[in-house]
């Protein structure tokens, strides 16, 4: 099975090289005439007046956390999505599997609804 990934490995190397090559070419072929004004951060012509690394709205963290949770949930469902049709065909505990997954989903849907109601998904 690993041999399927041999092309992936080769492609990864090629893609990395392919992404680096233009940068190198650009560096070689393009001019390099640095100038303090040119190299200063762009701020619509204004002088940058404070550090760019500012603290951000906590909502971004919340979105990222929720994303992790839902992403995990999706990852948990992949194997189910792959075997469920076969399991139905074989009649192998299909309804038990259905119940298991629906309980799993129900728990998280309740969490999702509660979040919605609490305003965690609002972007003000």
């Amino acid at each position, binding site marked *: 099975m690993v041999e399927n990934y041999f092309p992936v490995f080769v492609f990864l190397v090629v893609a990395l090289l392919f992404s680096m090559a233009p940068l190198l070419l650009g560096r070689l072929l393009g001019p390099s005439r640095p100038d303090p004004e040119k190299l200063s951060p762009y701020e619509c012509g204004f002088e940058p007046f404070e550090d760019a690394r500012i603290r951000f709205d906590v909502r*971004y963290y919340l979105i990222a956390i929720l994303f*992790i949770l839902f992403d995990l949930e999706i990852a948990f469902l992949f194997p189910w999505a792959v*075997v469920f049709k076969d399991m139905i065909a074989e009649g192998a505990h299909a309804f038990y599997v259905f119940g298991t997954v629906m309980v799993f989903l129900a728990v998280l849907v309740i969490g999702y609804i*509660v979040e919605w109601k609490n305003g965690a998904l609002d972007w003000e």
Partner: protein
Amino acid sequence: MEFQTVVFYLFGAIAVAAALGVILVRNPVHAALCLVLVFFSSAAIWLLLEAEFLAITLVLVYVGAVMVLFLFVVMMLDINVDRLREGFWSNLPLGLLVAAVLVVEMLLVLTGDVFRQASSPPALPTDASNTESIGRVLYTLYSYPFELAAMILLVAMVAAVSLTLRKRKDVRYLDPAEQVKVKAADRLRVISMPAEKE
């Protein structure tokens, strides 16, 4: 040397180097990115162990989601790295001692019989899908831990919302649903006035 072995050592070396980077690099953002590299190369190693589903999930979940949150947090905090490093030298002896003990134990175990006998897992046929194998047991034999995972995710959800969510009072928020529902009649009232005469 077999090609797979070469790839293993390549990714193993990247993983170790990046792991060292995580703890040695001064800038926390660089450290977080090194951690990304560690996850990525570990995924490659898992793939070599024929754990296709787990390897890709590692990338999907850890690299694609967890580390994004890490970066969000690290990028937005102005951490004074030098202050964090205070006490580094005074704690070093103890740290080294613990590390040395761990290394010795690891060497003892890893050079022991079990791991010397252990060979790489038997190669799976080209069309084998371990996603399917996982699917066949996860929702039946392992349904109990599976549901526990759902409950733990729920705990995380409740905790995240109750600890981070705060309503801001100073924003003027427009609810798009309300906006859409508006009818012309709500905004405009046509009244008829009798014409006035001088």
